[in-house]
């Protein structure tokens, strides 16, 4: 006798318990602490904060631990938590020119005011497995220099002085908020940048890469890439002025792109912009390329039909939480629909056979 699949509730409880025990792994080994993840898997923490749209290294580290290192799952945990947080207000726009840079490079000028600061980068490491790390050895103490309190001006501002690069479009209108209003298409640049900065790193990377390989080519240079802490300030109504309430680490990329000019504009360089939480330079550079690519209409460029020029395509598919949810939901039961299809296919086949037989 057939017994309908009962016991979903018990199966779920047992699965959760098993998952928790798998997450912990071998209990003979010390458990990872949140502080260890935060300090030693910092770039994973940064990615979770950036795509989770919540700047909190401890919560991101907790999410990574809970997600067993699955970063998209960790991002999802952060997003779901973020939903429950009240919105207290908006900060004053952060001033990245006043960033305390730990890294600042320009690919377009050999030297420039503020200097090239290589910082803690993988760029010139040889990718050889360091077997010493397997034996837990302490790293050498890095050389230090006194911090330079001078502001570090943006490279693109130098180009701007000669009119060689477009002026950043200014707007006094408050930007729309992707997390508080449904996506509107066509989207403003502010909305596009919001979607890109929290979009999936892999997706944004591949979109940017496709423009470099010729699908909507924009000939980008990294005008400047900077990483460091910036102050977050908020207007306090009772005080009447802005006070610093904290600081966040950001990666900012200004890409400089060729522009042949159009009917209305003489040839000049144009900008692509990337700004991402934490030390996330791959994402930030990719974001600036995709931003620039999506600006084709505003700059009067030709739409070549490249995926990275297609706003709806890029914006509607950049979010990995939406993507992974919809992708994975096909493992949920679909037997009602499948049954309906089954009946249809049987009927169509029966009719096809009947026709064949009638013909013979």
């Amino acid at each position, binding site marked *: *006798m*057939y017994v*309908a*699949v*009962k*016991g*979903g*509730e018990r*199966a*779920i409880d047992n699965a959760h318990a098993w998952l928790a025990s798998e997450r912990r792994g071998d209990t003979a080994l010390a458990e990872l602490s949140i502080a260890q993840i935060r300090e030693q898997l910092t770039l994973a923490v940064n990615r979770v904060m950036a795509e989770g749209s919540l700047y909190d290294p401890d919560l991101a580290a907790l999410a990574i631990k809970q997600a067993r290192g699955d970063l998209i799952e960790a991002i*999802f945990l952060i*997003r*779901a938590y*973020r*939903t*429950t947080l*009240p919105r207290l207000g908006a900060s004053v726009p952060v001033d990245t020119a006043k960033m305390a840079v730990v890294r600042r490079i320009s690919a377009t000028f050999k030297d420039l005011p503020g200097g090239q600061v290589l910082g803690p980068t993988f760029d010139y490491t040889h990718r050889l497995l360091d077997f010493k790390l397997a034996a837990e050895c302490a790293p050498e103490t890095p050389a230090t220099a006194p911090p330079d309190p001078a502001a570090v001006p943006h490279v693109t501002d130098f180009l701007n002085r000669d009119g060689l690069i477009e002026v950043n479009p200014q707007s006094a209108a408050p930007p729309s908020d992707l*997390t*508080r*209003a*449904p*996506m*509107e*298409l*066509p989207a403003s640049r502010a909305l596009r940048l919001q979607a890109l900065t929290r979009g999936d790193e892999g997706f944004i990377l591949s979109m940017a890469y496709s423009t470099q390989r010729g699908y909507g080519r924009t000939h980008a240079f990294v005008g400047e890439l900077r990483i460091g802490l910036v102050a977050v300030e908020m207007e306090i109504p009772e005080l009447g002025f802005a006070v610093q309430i904290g600081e966040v680490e950001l990666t900012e990329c200004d890409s400089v792109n060729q522009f042949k000019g159009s009917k209305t504009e003489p040839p000049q360089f144009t900008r692509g912009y990337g700004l991402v939480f934490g030390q996330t330079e791959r994402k930030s550079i990719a974001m600036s390329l995709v931003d620039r690519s999506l600006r084709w209409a505003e700059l009067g460029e030709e739409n070549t039909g490249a995926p990275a020029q297609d706003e*709806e395509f890029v914006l*509607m598919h950049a979010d990995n*939480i*939406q993507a*992974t*949810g*919809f*992708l*994975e*939901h*096909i493992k*949920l*039961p*679909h*037997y*009602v*629909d499948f*049954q*309906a*299809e*089954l*009946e*249809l296919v049987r*009927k*169509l086949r029966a*009719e096809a056979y009947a026709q064949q037989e009638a013909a013979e």
Partner: protein
Amino acid sequence: MTDQAYNFAYLDEQTKRMIRRAILKGVAVPGYQVPFASREMPMPYGWGTGGVQLTAACLTPDDRLKVIDQGADDTTNAVSIRKFFQRVAGVAVTEATTEATLIQTRHRIPDTPLRVGQILVYQVPIPEPLRFLEPREAETRKMHELEDYGLMHVKLYEDIARHGQIATAYAYPVKVEGRYVMDPSPIPKFDNPKLSGSPALQLFGAGREQRIYALPPFTHVVSLDFEDHPFVASKADHACDLCAATDSYLDEVIIDDDGGRMFVCSDTDYCGGRRAAGYVGRLGGQA
């Protein structure tokens, strides 16, 4: 027992208000897809986040909630969503369609007729009935605006030309009050007639796609067809092997290695109710 760390039914009151506004607009314009600022929920997109947000916005402490997936109360995702609302809203739950004040469903309309005062919340993956004919949202919104549904009729016609019939078995498109073409969510077309003239309020939520739409009670809903190829609500041509019902939607279950199969009601509450009333199907007597 309610989890005190969260607001009643998880969402904060401002968010519920935003969703209720979208619901009211949807009720005022039946079949029209209302954009809403969908929130990230603690279950993945694709698991029913749109339905969960509608349920959260509609629940009151006096409600009695029923959750079904594939017609059944005991499928894993139905269990999970029901548990979620027991935890964050502490509402009473039931498996009986007649006792529920709010029913959240995935892929089915209960076989027991609904009544005035009930709310049926559907989980919707792709709310746009024109999506697979035109992938661009900007375009499809314009098509709805202009009531430009020619493309849909051409698709249905091509089905008939190729297969001799309309080859859509579920998520079969409908027209609401002679105006909007609407996706009824992936319910089998067997359920389509129940959409029309229902005494219950029907709400549709698509979380990932950020859309809500509605059918107020007693709305006229027509499944798209042609005069010479009228719509037929089809199901497996059997009776339920447990309760002998001939009017319910059936699941086909493989029972042995030799291709043996049985057909049982997909609506577990309907089937259980009939068996309790003494109806016995072909295999229902064995135990």
